[in-house]
């Protein structure tokens, strides 16, 4: 056994996707957005793991499942730091960082208590007007929510 290799806190997978560097506290949210709660193959996940870059992080390993860019980008708003690592036969074949999309449908709650999305049965929809500082504009009430006020559904 290679002694230099770090001990894995979460088991390795043979084939599938590792979602690494999920910000502290957002693992279940990412699972939810990617609809992994209904996924039938093996999933390992870990939270509060030590990270050199971010202090604490979360990780999800999904067996035999690869994600399209459009699926990956949906998690960008909850986990902008996340990395997607595709694994085949225990080897990394591709690493991608998530990209913030132009629009978010569902997922985010409008912070404006007077917005129609908080009163009627309407799916929320936001345009991302500032990707760097994460500012979103509600398609309905047109109010702008800053990063620190973003709440998830």
């Amino acid at each position: 056994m290679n002694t230099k290799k770090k001990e894995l806190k979460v088991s390795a997978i043979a084939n599938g996707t590792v979602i690494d560097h999920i910000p502290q506290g957002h693992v279940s949210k990412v699972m939810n957005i990617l609809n992994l709660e209904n996924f039938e193959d093996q999933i390992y996940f870990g939270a509060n793991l030590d990270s050199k870059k971010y202090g604490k992080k979360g990780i999800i390993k999904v067996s035999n499942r690869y994600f399209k860019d459009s699926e990956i980008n949906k998690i960008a708003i909850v986990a902008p730091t996340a990395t997607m690592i595709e694994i085949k036969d225990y080897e990394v074949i591709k690493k991608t960082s998530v990209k913030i999309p132009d629009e978010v449908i569902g997922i985010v709650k409008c912070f404006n208590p007077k917005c129609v999305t908080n009163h009627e049965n309407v799916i929320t929809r936001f345009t991302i007007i500032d990707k760097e500082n994460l500012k979103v504009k509600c398609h309905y009430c047109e109010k702008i929510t800053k990063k620190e006020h973003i709440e998830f559904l």
Partner: protein
Amino acid sequence: MKNRSLISINDYSKEELLKILKIAEEFEANPRQKILSNYVIASLFFEPSTRTRLSFESAINQLGGRVIGFTDSSSSSVKKGESLRDTIETVSLYSDLIVMRHPIEGSARFASEINDTPIINAGDGANQHPTQCLLDMYSIQKTQGTLDNLDIAFVGDLKYGRTVHSLVIAMSMFKNTRFHLVSPEELKLPRAVKEFILSSGLTYEQYTDINAVIEKVDILYMTRIQAERFADPIEYEKVKNSYILENSMLENSKDNLRILHPLPRVNEINEDVDTNDKAYYFQQAQNGVFVRQALLASILGLR
């Protein structure tokens, strides 16, 4: 613009807005053309608004159209707990176009996405009131002969006044508009709107004294300062009388100056201004009828 809803002033391009203003001139010259005699327009006022509702209903009636609807939600099925979606679905089956006012922000946008019946937003909470903006633009164009190269002062509550925000955004589409923003410290124009002015390549100046702008401007757009906007009642008492326009203050103003106000007025324009030829707020309200006629005719494909 056929079958297109008007929810926010940004939904229409500059050219489309100018086209509506052009059509409004035709209705001003001849407001009683019976072009809507085969149409039923729904007027759904989920909260009361006398002026806007009567203006729309007058516009429709003068064109020979029929109006159905309600004047506040207590006399509608909303009181029984019906969803907005169901109300709009049903009313769409009874009418060709829906005019709606609703206290919830974004409700008009939501309504416009339920089916193909066009919606005109007559105000959705503090969000948008695009027909007010159109009539303000029409009034400016009519009194100044142009929408370019104007000095426009906005006075009063620039923080919460949605008519101010919409008009600033609309006037930012025109060449060399210079914005003069007069308000108490607490009620300054929101930063996002000021950034919009700058991103359009235009400039603004901020003042706390109304007298500093009266002699420089072509348009003086007055708004009401409401006591409930102040966290500290003492602050309100301090400023409440400093944004009142009196006739004597207009002595050295430009000849082409016109005073606008979205109405209702309380005391921010003294009644002694009413007889001054520069007072234009009542004609402004009348222009609302022509602009709404133009909008209805465009959306129904009749112009």
